[in-house]
């Protein structure tokens, strides 16, 4: 019954590796987001997709590439991981770009 789910919950990897985080929502929403929360708890929008189209792409290194295979999924692929990528990544969804956002439980990424 989880509304917005993310896998994995924890991800520990070495610098230079490529990894993906998956997000799925069963709310029937058409807009999905990725946020990054750093070690100081600061939350920042990274990407937003509406009906599988990219509508927000903040200043994020192009090592980060979101992929939306359908409206219910928004995956985040990260190439050549760096130490500074260590953070908690949150997925969220909303109905329309003006709707209330519902957040997933987060994925804690640790890059060694």
């Amino acid at each position: 019954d989880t509304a917005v789910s993310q896998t994995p919950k924890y991800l520990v990897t070495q610098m230079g590796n490529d990894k993906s985080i998956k997000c799925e929502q069963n709310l029937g929403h058409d807009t999905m987001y990725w946020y990054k929360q750093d070690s100081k708890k600061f939350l920042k929008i990274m990407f937003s997709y509406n009906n599988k189209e990219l509508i927000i792409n903040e200043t994020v290194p192009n090592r980060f590439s979101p992929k939306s295979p359908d409206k219910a999924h928004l995956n985040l692929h990260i190439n050549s991981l760096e130490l500074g990528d260590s953070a908690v990544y949150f997925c969220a969804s909303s109905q329309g770009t003006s709707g209330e956002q519902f957040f997933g439980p987060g994925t804690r990424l640790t890059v060694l």
Partner: protein
Amino acid sequence: AQSVTQPDIHITVSEGASLELRCNYSYGATPYLFWYVQSPGQGLQLLLKYFSGDTLVQGIKGFEAEFKRSQSSFNLRKPSVHWSDAAEYFCAVGLQGMRFGAGTRLTVKP
């Protein structure tokens, strides 16, 4: 540009005492404002939101917030804090691509 400021990084209150967490925003039009709570190791849960209408909004868990346009503020209040309210609280503005404040960590003393 949208931005949110939460002036208090950390607040400690005694259980049963009242609470007010401050939030100031900068926004070019009528703001959409939110308060979220994050318990340790958890995701974000929406406490309440303001889109328009009555400037005093009620949320879950006994929280309320008041929108004051003249002060560009949206402070969160609770009349009597419970130990389970200890968490990180985030104010946010906007809709698509919300901008979050830096958060206020609430500690509740017995």
